[in-house]
């Protein structure tokens, strides 16, 4: 009896293997890609535990255990850097994520199709500028105390100009706002697409029932795109702590470095400029571990509250 059931199970498995053979074959390139380009390079992280020397290679460099991590934890500015990294990322998640959503809702309510297209295209534009250029525009054209637009406006209102780039208290806000400016328009694409999928009949019947524009937004548009919002949010959490070097680097200066130094910029200064591969790998690895813990937490929270999760 037991033999029989085993036999049929095997038969079934064989059958399904045969049935889906083509699908399995199709999966192979994808799996190979992930193994070769995503998993094998992970092994390179072992150099975090070595005194890596490019001339000796991974296999002949000396092992040093946790020495590199010890150096990091004993470094005087370790806690401020950790704090900056997390705080800036949290701000960016909070404001950088909600801004495109609000913009999409606004754009969606523009009834003039020609005007809507125009607005959409204009708000996309900054996405295609590099951080170097965008940073230059922000620093010299917007925030400069002598010629920046913002300060000209302040002066026009009879206020004292502010030298934003030397005010540490404003540095994080500048970085986050610049990011919103750059990517807000781009971020609306998916929302707008999701909104077009909402059946117009819902709006029609709502307006028959006397719902105004705002009520329609609250009770029809928003609920209609909730799954998209959650998916995008989870994807975004997946990039937590991945703030990117350039974006901070262009805004960092001697006056605001105390609040803008994050792991990415520290890695650049402490390691790459001096060829300390092992140490930077250790710092990067530590950052990844922190990021992973946060991702895990965020995912769990999302599953508990909305039932949706990344995995």
């Amino acid at each position, binding site marked *: 009896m037991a033999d029989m059931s085993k036999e049929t199970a095997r038969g079934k498995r064989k059958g399904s293997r045969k049935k889906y053979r*083509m*699908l399995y*074959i*199709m999966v192979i*390139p994808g799996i190979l890609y992930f193994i070769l380009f995503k998993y094998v390079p992970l092994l390179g992280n072992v150099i975090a535990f070595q005194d890596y*020397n*490019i*001339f*000796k*290679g991974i296999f002949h460099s000396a092992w040093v255990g946790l020495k590199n991590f010890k*150096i990091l934890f004993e*470094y*005087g*500015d370790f806690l401020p850097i950790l704090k900056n990294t997390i705080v800036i990322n949290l701000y960016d998640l909070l404001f950088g994520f909600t801004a495109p959503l609000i913009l999409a809702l606004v754009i969606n309510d523009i009834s003039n199709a020609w005007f809507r297209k125009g607005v959409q295209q204009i708000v996309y534009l900054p996405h295609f500028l590099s951080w170097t250029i965008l940073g*230059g525009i922000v*620093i*010299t054209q917007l925030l*400069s*105390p*002598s010629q920046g637009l913002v300060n000209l406006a302040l002066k026009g209102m009879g206020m004292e100009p502010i*030298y934003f*780039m*030397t005010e540490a208290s404003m540095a994080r806000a500048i970085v986050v706002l610049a990011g919103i400016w750059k990517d807000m328009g781009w971020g609306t694409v998916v929302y707008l697409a999701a909104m077009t999928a909402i059946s117009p009949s819902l709006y029609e019947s709502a307006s028959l029932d006397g719902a105004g524009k705002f009520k329609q937004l609250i009770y029809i548009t928003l609920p209609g795109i909730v799954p998209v919002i959650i998916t995008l949010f989870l994807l975004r959490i997946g990039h937590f702590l991945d703030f990117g070097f350039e974006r901070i680097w262009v805004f*960092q*200066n*001697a*006056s605001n*470095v*105390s609040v803008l*130094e994050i792991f990415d910029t*520290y890695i650049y*200064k*402490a390691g790459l*400029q*001096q*060829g*300390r591969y092992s140490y930077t790998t250790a710092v990067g690895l530590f950052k990844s571990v922190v990021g992973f813990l946060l991702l895990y937490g965020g995912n769990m929270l999302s599953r508990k509250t909305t039932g949706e999760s990344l995995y």
Partner: protein
Amino acid sequence: MKRKKLMAMLMAVSVFAGVLTGCGNASGQNSGSSEQRQSETTEQTQETSEESDVPEEKEPLKFTMSISNGLNEYIAQSPDINQDKWVKVFNERYNLDLTLKLLDHKRFAEEMQMMFASGEIADVVKCYDNYTSPSMCQSVENGVFMPLDDILATAEEKYPNLMKTIPENAWDYNKYNGHIYGIPVSYLSRATRRATYIRKDLLDQTGLGIPTTLDEFVEVLKAFRDMGVEYPFAGRENWTYTDIFFGAYGVNPLTWNLNEEGQLVPDMIRPEMKEALAFHKMLKDEGLMDPESLTTNSSDWLNKIYTGKVGLFDHNGGQLYGFNSSLQQNVPEGEFILIPSPVGPYGDQGTQKYSPVFESIFINKDFQEPERIFEYLDRMCLDEEQDFMAYGIKGEDWTEENGQVQYEYPTDQVGIAEISFRKTIGLIRDDSYDPRLLPFTPSGEDFMDWVQNVSTKEGIDNIDPGKLESLTLHPELQPGNGCDLFHTMAADIFYGKEPIDSFDAFVEEYLSRGGQEVIEEATKAYQEGRTFDRK
């Protein structure tokens, strides 16, 4: 359902076929090239065996050399630099078989790293500065290159031109543990490179003479301010090219020097630095210095200069013509001249002196004929070959009449870059100035006058401590990364957020955060002769 399955199968087949052909091609190419290589090597061995029969005619010196493309426009417009006209001319003229490996200037350190990590290291590697340059990736320390002491022992007789041409301090600058690995092919005969630029037209309007002391400079700057010059003096982020008033106090944010106790310390903690910072703050408060200096990047800074908003600044003296022609596009009557730098209260004057070496070459330890590289370098020191590098082929690109060179300096960027490419592969050059070409360039005479009469009298000696282990753990103590303790303190003082006396607290913090060890290590290196003089 059936159609779906068919589609799936078709797709699978096509994907699979794609993979197969992809692999097929790749392996085919591989085997092809390895065959080619094999046949090449066999040809080579045949040639060498033939060559041994005929000893008179030397076979061309075959070597590969890695160089930075230097963002050179002539290199950029060449489809294959090894098929280039000048490479062929050099090969023929000097009996070479040179293969260039170009590394991208913008990612030079990374490309050097890749070359070292791959193990395919060129026979001759050229890099900026000496072996301590980060792009060298400690390759000398790891024994990648050949020590040249044996060759240099007899070099005075064998390669007299080379030994005469390259100054001794340039060789010293390449010493590692008492051995010389690098050849300082591109050296600086004058270590003072940066000059004080002033707007002559504006100065004439003020009716004041050329200033010399700090007070006189302040007087001129005030006159500029009152005339409505927007930025009488303009500096740049990280105090880069903002040297002259630091120099007047004998210090610089980037350099090191001995203190009274004989310790090698970074200038930034010396008491003179406090005075220099106070001076800069005064300039800013009086409206004599661009208040946005510390957040102005290089292109914005240049823009201010080109549009005529700046009266005084400092930069490499060799750029005089470039600054003037860019200025005159916006301000036709504007003119910059080079003047002696301000003299400070203790008699100090000038900008930080550079290291005596601009570029060095290193010879791979596996390379068989290092002596012939030296022969080539020795020949390149001759006047005839220096003429060739500067002007090109005699009779074609230039002529000589009654001992006078008849030559026309190119007006286009590619033409100018072409000269620089010849110098790149010709290797030997004085990077301070080129007395051959300068007379033919616009403003060349003025610059040469500055080199010969001003630069020799000014400039601040300093000592480069080399690579310090204790510093690598502390980027916040490192001069020049822009966001270290010094720059933060200097910015706070400059913008009036902290009093000038906060400098003293900074010095204490610097010492307590590991600076003490850094100074000890630097001093030890100095006492053991492992540091590099910049004089």
